[in-house]
């Protein structure tokens, strides 16, 4: 991800995150890792998928229609 920056969160939230990490079986090694994961998940949710062209999309929709799915 390249260069890193510092952010501030409430101490109470930080402690909750630490507790979560301890109870989650060691999957996350630090609050940094957890915060990075959660933010990545949240922010990428709304990213538009661009793995197909409008022409491909139209073709797929036609197929879905012909099969009775839409």
């Amino acid at each position, binding site marked *: 991800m390249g260069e890193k920056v510092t952010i501030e969160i409430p101490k109470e939230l930080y402690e909750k995150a630490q507790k979560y990490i301890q109870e*989650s*079986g060691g*999957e*996350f090694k630090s609050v940094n890792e957890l915060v990075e*994961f959660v933010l990545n*998940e949240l922010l*990428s*949710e*709304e*990213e538009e*998928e661009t*793995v*197909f062209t409008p022409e491909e*999309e139209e073709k*797929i*929709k036609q*197929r*879905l229609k012909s*099969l009775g*799915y*839409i």
Partner: protein
Amino acid sequence: MVSKPHGGKLIRRIKRDFEKEDIQTLEVSLEQALDIENICRGVFSPLEGFLDRNNYLSVLENKRLSNDIPWTIPIILDVSNQSIDGLKEGDDVLLKYYDRNIALMNIEEIYQWDKKQYARYIYGTTDPEHPGVSKIYKMNDYLVAGKLELLNSVPTRFERYTLWPIETRILFRERGWRTIVGFQTRNAPHRGHEYVQKAALTFVDGLFVNPLVGWKKKGDYKDDVILAAYETLIKHYYPRDVVVLAVLRTSMRYAGPREAVHHAIMRKNFGCTHFIIGRDHAGVGNYYGPYDAWKIFQEFPDLGITPLFIREAFYCKKCDGMVNEKICPHNEEYRIHISGTNIRRMLLNGERPPEYMMRREVAETILSFENPFM
């Protein structure tokens, strides 16, 4: 918004402009050809080819790819000593299924594998009586790794029911579904399945019923039977436009907990946000505890799809309906457990199971087949 593909990007490796050149070929089995198409069409995203040794060992030992992305079942291409004669790392090879050019592979690595080690890690047993283990023991001694490019689809009798991740993603969006629950099955539906699906569907926008067609063990339902039975159930007992029925062409591995995670990952790639994990999911015999497939998900908080652990349904005479142990206060004398084995036995004898076990229309559909079982 449907789930992001596993690893962040939907893999699509399709090559259309291949012209036959002087190229070495490798024959692949149907099962291998299906794995190839599943890789190239994104069902196994983020895989772009068969696993190299480093990733293979990482999956065995850590249940993750070497880049830490959860992955529990190695996707490997086994080849005989003779068939790799003359092949070396860096070569391009044409993968053929009978006379059909399926894919191009750039060989990254050829390596040997320890089948007992595989069995121990993946199946938790080296017992050759386990159907998955026995299959592994019969495989070839070398594995070939490398990125793939699909040239042609594997022929299918189920074209009408074949949807790829890119298609389901567009379909779900067109239907306006933001939350989709995936349901894995290798059975014709009984009332317990219907209960579980409807319980999940209550909280999400759509249900993706995704029966697995491919290699199964003797005594399992035939693929056509499963599809016909689901068509009947959906027609009579589900609201319109809340269900999508499409097949997944891959083999059952009977690897219990590890396979449950694998099933969830594949459905994530189809766009599902939730996935139903059954009791003894993908299990066989007594090799796994009834809820082992639930526990394993604790190891994957970063899976990116929400597992739904819905308890086994049974019919309670006192409640007068399908319930589960969490919502039914009555004791065992009122409970009738729905056993898939018993239902199969009845159907095999030409009997229609009672309505509380299986819908009449579904049973009649199954019985209309001369031999509904493998």
